[in-house]
């Protein structure tokens, strides 16, 4: 049964009970979690973000393998200041979510004291496209065969920050992303060939900004893409503007991308955005000797000049 692969009823019960306590005790004023979307005939099961404010609503909460979207960006929608208590939020964090949250904390967009974190060691989410090929017909499917590629290459299964864990930690498997197979393949191309690859990719872009809006490293109060003066880019979609948009995006998350893979997952046009992020990760790893370039630190390699930094191009 595929449904059984997707769910963990025991974990869900723990989660609901804990959230109820936290809300009832007033420790948090709302909880960011997931709920199962209404079941539609012939359509894959899906869990979507939800906000729980009333303890009697905790039964809506689920945590399963189709809870894809990172919740941390929703914290930025919550009102701050004054007597607002909305920011005293609880949320579930997997490994990637905790890296994403650290990113927001480090960028002073969220303070650690505002959030209460229920950590969930995670062994991967399911890829909708892979699942759609087997759902609901196939009686037996291996979990590995339907896991998201990003999750298959994950090296941060356990949350790196949390207030409590809802279940036992899992062992960290060595990442396959760090092999950067596809990045090496692109690097081996000539500049002209590489240009052609990206020209084809970017020419499909419709600038819906789903990649930016879902990205935890894209947390600026005012995005440069929405600036009219100076207008770095306009709404024109000539190929030069497409390159400009993707360069701005990639450079702004360089050294700050936590590798959650959401940008690639949400892109309606199937653009290979993550490869740009991984190229930067690989460079940072090689130039600055960072073992895990995804891990947010106090001092980011591109955030501070160090006299020992490599600068062969100067």
């Amino acid at each position, binding site marked *: 049964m595929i449904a059984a692969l997707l769910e963990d009823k025991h974990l869900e019960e723990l989660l609901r009970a804990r959230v109820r306590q936290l809300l009832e005790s007033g420790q948090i004023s709302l909880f960011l979690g997931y709920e199962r979307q209404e079941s539609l005939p012939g359509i894959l099961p899906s869990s979507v973000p939800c*906000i729980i404010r009333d303890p009697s609503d905790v039964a809506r909460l689920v945590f399963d393998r189709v809870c894809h979207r990172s919740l941390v960006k929703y914290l930025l929608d919550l009102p701050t200041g004054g007597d607002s208590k909305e920011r005293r939020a609880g949320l579930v964090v997997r490994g990637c979510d905790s890296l994403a949250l650290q990113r927001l904390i480090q960028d002073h967009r969220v303070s650690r004291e505002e959030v209460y974190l229920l950590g969930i060691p995670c062994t991967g989410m399911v890829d909708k496209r892979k699942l759609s090929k087997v759902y609901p017909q196939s009686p037996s499917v291996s979990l590995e065969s339907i896991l998201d590629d990003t999750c298959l290459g994950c090296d941060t299964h356990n949350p790196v920050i949390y207030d409590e864990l809802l279940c036992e930690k899992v062992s960290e498997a060595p990442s396959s992303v760090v092999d950067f197979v596809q990045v090496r393949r692109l690097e081996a191309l000539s500049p002209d060939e590489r240009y052609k690859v990206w020209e084809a990719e970017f020419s*499909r872009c*419709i*600038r819906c900004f*789903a990649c930016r809006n879902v990205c935890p490293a894209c947390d600026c109060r005012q995005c440069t893409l929405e600036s009219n003066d100076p207008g770095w880019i*306009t709404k*024109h979609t000539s190929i030069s503007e497409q390159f400009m948009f993707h360069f701005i995006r990639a450079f702004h998350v360089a050294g700050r991308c936590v590798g959650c893979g959401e940008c690639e997952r*949400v892109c*309606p046009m*199937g653009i290979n955005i993550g490869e740009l992020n991984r190229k930067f990760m690989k460079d940072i790893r090689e130039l600055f000797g960072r073992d895990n370039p995804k891990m947010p630190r106090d001092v980011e390699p591109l955030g501070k000049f160090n006299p020992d930094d490599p600068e062969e191009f100067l």
Partner: protein
Amino acid sequence: MSATITVDLEELETQLAGDVSRRFDVYVPVDENGAVVFRRLTTPASGWLKRSVSLTRSVLPANKLLTPQTDPVLRFQGGPTDYEVSDAAASTDLVILGVKPCDARALKLLDKVFADESDIDQVYVERRQKTVLIGVACEKPEPTCFCKAMGVSPWSSDDCDLMIYPMQGLEGLALKCSSDKGQAFLAGMHLTIRELPAETSEEIEAHYRAIPQPLSEFVGHPEALSLDSFELPIWGRISERCLSCGLCTYLCPTCYCFAVVDKSLGERGLRARCWDSCMFPDFLKMAGGHNPRPTKKERVRQRFMHKLCYTHERYGQIFCVGCGRCVEKCPVGLHFVDVLSQLRRELAGGGGDGL
């Protein structure tokens, strides 16, 4: 309108890639890394026609070819005070092959916006007149399709000029002409045409009628929302998980909003109509900084009130053709069917009617 005919697939392919491509810009759906997109037919590999008509719905609706994302209006050139301005709006003779009935219906709806007698958009109308729509009946709908619920028939030729029925087991490719323009276009290709007996024509229709579309049954036939729905308390909750990206509007065949944007390159520049989205926070932001839709609540409400209420008030139609693109692609599942369900529950609970 007219009888169903068959033509030879290879003969049609040769004509379209040859003579027709010299007279028209021919656009066909192609599979690019798993994304179906419309591309200009330039140097097609043999067998392209069969591949094109067997593809699933495109990521971007076919009808967006008539309202491109960046649509030049005028060019300007010169110094700071003395500008020369020239017209940049253009329309070409266009053939779009592989239009799904949902996207074809969307054009009928956009006609109400851009080609209404009292409110004519010259460029749009010209393009519409110069475009031949060759539809393709839906052989294998996506699980997210619900066009039947929105009053679109996945095999009807009504909204196209010609319709292709790519079903197996027929000798040749079944076609139906549904407009004078289609008739003239077909005649111009000088194909060998074989008329099908009425029974075969009925068999074809029966074949397409029998293809199930489970989501349509679930959706039923939505009624329009009343203007009072603006005040429903549920909008705040519905909008909470919105990411404020423009994916749903850019993929929607009935969304048409644009902004007029100048791009200046030193002493010359281009003014264009560019797609814009009511889901973007700055969509309605005014000079001076006031924003009438400051939060997601107002913006998400606008999207669904526009589709389910305002267009109905103004044009007598709900602006959704059930193509299912938002259902498939919204990163947070905040799509037409989901919102419809939430509104129905809310209205049923509140004793209100509608939907």
